[in-house]
């Protein structure tokens, strides 16, 4: 590991690494993020390495295990450089053919090439794949290129050059000014102007100051931060060091979920390498600035994504939020001024310092600058991570990038902001994504989780699910959240069980409004949002449940029935054999019947029937 002690050292190392790389040399980039690993990418990359060795191509072809490429639906993803040929769903058995046919002979393997679900077109090159074409990848740009466990890969791509510029060519005040001018706002969900936060912390009095990276990405369905930490932890680190320098902090913490073992591991390696390289620790790049970072894994509490609960957790206490003021910038960890930012926020910092605030602020809208990463999940064809300029519409994300809804179903709504957010119905999909316009619609940017629902999603059950989540995660300190969300959950549960009454909707609205205004922290203050927004846009579904005891999306068990269509049933007996409670009867080749008394509505018969004969209504 080459140690760098001055900016010149860093520059020389970067030049040396670049010189050592032949841009025309073939590289095989295999996605080794968590998603593709589950698809088997570790076996695929092993197969590539063995094949390359076996053919004595080791010096001539590089195989790189990268972080998450973002196109998770199509994993394992393999991209061949420099040609840019993009292959999806690659298996171990495909490896020899890829090497011989594509790498050596330049031929494209049809069955591995991307086929657009809407147009049916085959697209060969990564940059032409619609999923990527419409994105603007600033933060995720290197996720397909570098090995996150090798700091030199990052340095070869100009990594840590922004740090060098900040430490040796700018004053702390200038760095803060640059971040302020860029218009960067917190990417964790609240959207507070980052530069203002930094300035408040810099101006606060304190002999010791801390910075924290909030990597406690708890919104279910959101995994942007996981992929940034897995795929390019150095960018986050670089941002933190720049921020610490600007604010005057000497110690940093990364609070990261223990449910993300690969991200924790890659971060650990990154910290070690940064220290060995001299980019973390004493007298960084000869600037006289000392800074170290510790990892603090979370221990399974969603509320610890809230900054004061997070700090309590670092202080070895229960994750109970505390009232603000005082704000962490003035009195945070152990009473000292502390600046807390989200992973994606930190990752934007080197980009801003490197390219400049003016360049950055040209991306996005008036009030919301830069790009935002979203995890597009649920009922969508192209599940994955999407980075787009602020101001992109929901429609573009869902249709142009996301490829629409599977099975040709109708998209009903999109939930943004997780348990703190609200749903947006399809009628409003032309909304440009920025902090203010989403709030006007009763939703919020949130951390970036975007869950797509179709006709088969019951919006009442959806709201109940979020309230159940909040009840599990509430710290229990304040009355409105501890007891109020419990009350809301009970009402919602009754409604989904067919026991709703007139007045329930009004009670939910009243209670929800009060909880929002009276709760101690952001968790309680936003907990009613999914309920309030589903009532706003899907009140008819609530009314159907309450008045007609009917679930229009055929989801709520108490309100649906499974029956067998006489015309379609062939009497094959598959459902009879699979039913866990023996509720189905019928002779061979004769129509089968479900005993409604015994049926537990598990859905097994629907799953196994090959004749579409099972009907849910």
């Amino acid at each position: 590991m080459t140690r760098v002690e001055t900016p010149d050292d860093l520059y020389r190392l970067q030049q040396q690494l670049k010189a050592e790389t032949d841009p025309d040399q073939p590289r095989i980039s295999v996605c080794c993020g968590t998603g593709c690993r589950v698809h088997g990418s570790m076996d695929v990359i092993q197969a590539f390495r063995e094949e390359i060795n076996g053919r004595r191509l080791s010096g001539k072809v590089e195989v790189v295990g990268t972080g998450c490429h973002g196109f998770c639906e199509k994993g394992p993803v393999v991209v061949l450089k420099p040609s840019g040929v993009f292959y999806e769903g690659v298996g171990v058995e495909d490896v020899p053919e890829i090497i011989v046919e594509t790498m050596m002979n330049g031929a494209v393997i049809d069955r591995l090439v991307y086929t657009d679900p809407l147009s049916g077109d085959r697209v060969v090159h990564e940059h032409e794949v619609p999923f990527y074409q419409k994105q603007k990848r600033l933060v995720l740009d290197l996720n397909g290129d570098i090995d996150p466990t090798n700091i030199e890969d990052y340095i070869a791509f100009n990594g840590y050059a922004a740090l060098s510029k900040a430490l040796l060519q700018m004053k702390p005040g200038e760095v803060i000014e640059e971040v302020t001018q860029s218009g960067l706002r917190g990417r964790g969900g609240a959207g507070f102007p980052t530069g203002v936060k930094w300035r408040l912390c810099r101006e606060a009095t304190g002999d010791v100051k801390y910075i924290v990276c909030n990597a406690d990405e708890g919104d279910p369905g959101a995994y942007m931060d996981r992929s940034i930490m897995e795929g390019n932890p150095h960018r986050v680190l670089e941002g933190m060091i720049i921020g610490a320098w600007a604010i005057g902090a000497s110690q940093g913490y990364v609070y990261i979920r223990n449910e993300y073992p690969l991200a924790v591991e890659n971060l650990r390696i990154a910290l070690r390498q940064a220290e060995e390289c001299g980019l973390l620790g004493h007298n960084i790049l000869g600037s006289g600035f000392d800074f170290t970072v510790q990892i603090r894994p979370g221990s399974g509490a969603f509320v610890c994504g809230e900054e004061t609960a997070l700090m309590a957790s670092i202080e070895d206490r229960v994750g109970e939020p505390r009232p603000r003021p005082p704000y962490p910038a003035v009195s945070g960890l152990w009473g000292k001024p502390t600046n807390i930012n989200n992973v994606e926020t930190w990752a934007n910092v080197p980009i801003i310092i490197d390219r400049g605030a003016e360049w950055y602020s040209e991306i996005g809208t008036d009030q919301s600058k830069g790009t935002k990463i979203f995890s597009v999940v649920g009922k969508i064809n192209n599940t994955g991570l999407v980075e787009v300029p602020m101001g992109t519409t929901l429609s573009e994300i869902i249709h142009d990038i996301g490829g629409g809804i599977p099975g040709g179903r109708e998209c009903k709504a999109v939930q943004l902001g997780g348990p703190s957010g609200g749903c947006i119905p399809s009628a409003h999909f032309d909304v440009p994504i920025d902090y203010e316009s989403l709030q006007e619609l009763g939703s919020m940017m949130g951390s970036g989780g975007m869950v797509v629902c179709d006709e088969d999603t019951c919006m009442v059950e959806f709201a109940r699910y979020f309230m159940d989540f909040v009840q599990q995660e509430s710290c229990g300190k304040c009355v409105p959240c501890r007891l109020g969300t419990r009350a809301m959950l009970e009402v919602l549960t009754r409604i989904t069980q067919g026991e709703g009454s007139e007045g329930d909707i009004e009670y939910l609205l009243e209670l929800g409004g009060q909880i929002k205004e009276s709760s101690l922290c952001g968790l309680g203050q936003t907990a009613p949002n999914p309920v309030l927004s589903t009532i706003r846009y899907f009140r008819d579904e609530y009314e159907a449940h309450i008045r007609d005891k009917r679930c229009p999306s055929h989801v709520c068990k108490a309100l649906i029935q499974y029956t067998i269509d006489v015309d379609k049933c062939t009497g094959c007996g598959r459902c009879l054999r699979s039913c866990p409670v023996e509720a189905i009867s019928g002779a061979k080749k004769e129509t089968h019947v479900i005993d409604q008394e015994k049926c537990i509505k598990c859905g097994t018969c629907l799953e196994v029937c090959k004749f579409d004969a099972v009907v849910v209504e």
Partner: protein
Amino acid sequence: MISLTIDGRRIEAAEGSTILEVAREHGIEIPTLCYHEALEPYGGCRLCVVELETPRGPRLVASCVYPAEEGAVVKTNSEMVQASRRMTVELLLAAAPHAKVIQELAARMGVKEPRVTLGDNDCILCGLCVRACAEIVGAKAISLVHRGFSKEVSPPFEIGSNACIGCTTCVFICPTGAIKLQDVLSTRSVHEWTSEFQARACKICGDHYLAPEFAGEAKESLVGE
């Protein structure tokens, strides 16, 4: 000194005070449950909320923790405040229907039958017992355990605490009487939390009044090592 407006009155206050402190000094009534002058404010019950004007519209803040700031405009009994307090009390009544102090608050505010039932537990999790045990007595025998709706006050392992000195501060400070003191002849026990103490008897009237462990602690802190 700073000046702020409370309920239309311009008031001078010492810097570093909370809105609640300032209000009480000037005879303005704000109901509280989890607040106690001898303890650090907690901000948990939300009964003491007041309406604060902000550039983005009126906002509710807990007066026991929110600092009195220069130029602040505060309303202690507006519609917004009353609606919030009523909801808070309704929820507490739904969870602690037999707690007298909650019944009294409900009567005062016109809260009748709660629209849900949330249990029947006299403990309202105001935290006063835990905080007093930690901040005043220093024994730290009990704490808040579990989380959310399951949160409760308990000694370690929900058995008993060796750190308890039988001072009965928790019994005294509990607003609902959820913590029980049991004196059977000379044996004193607090709730189900403590091992029993053999309380000392008064030489004059014979009543058992003091756990010797508490006497020892008190003597140490008064007289020194």
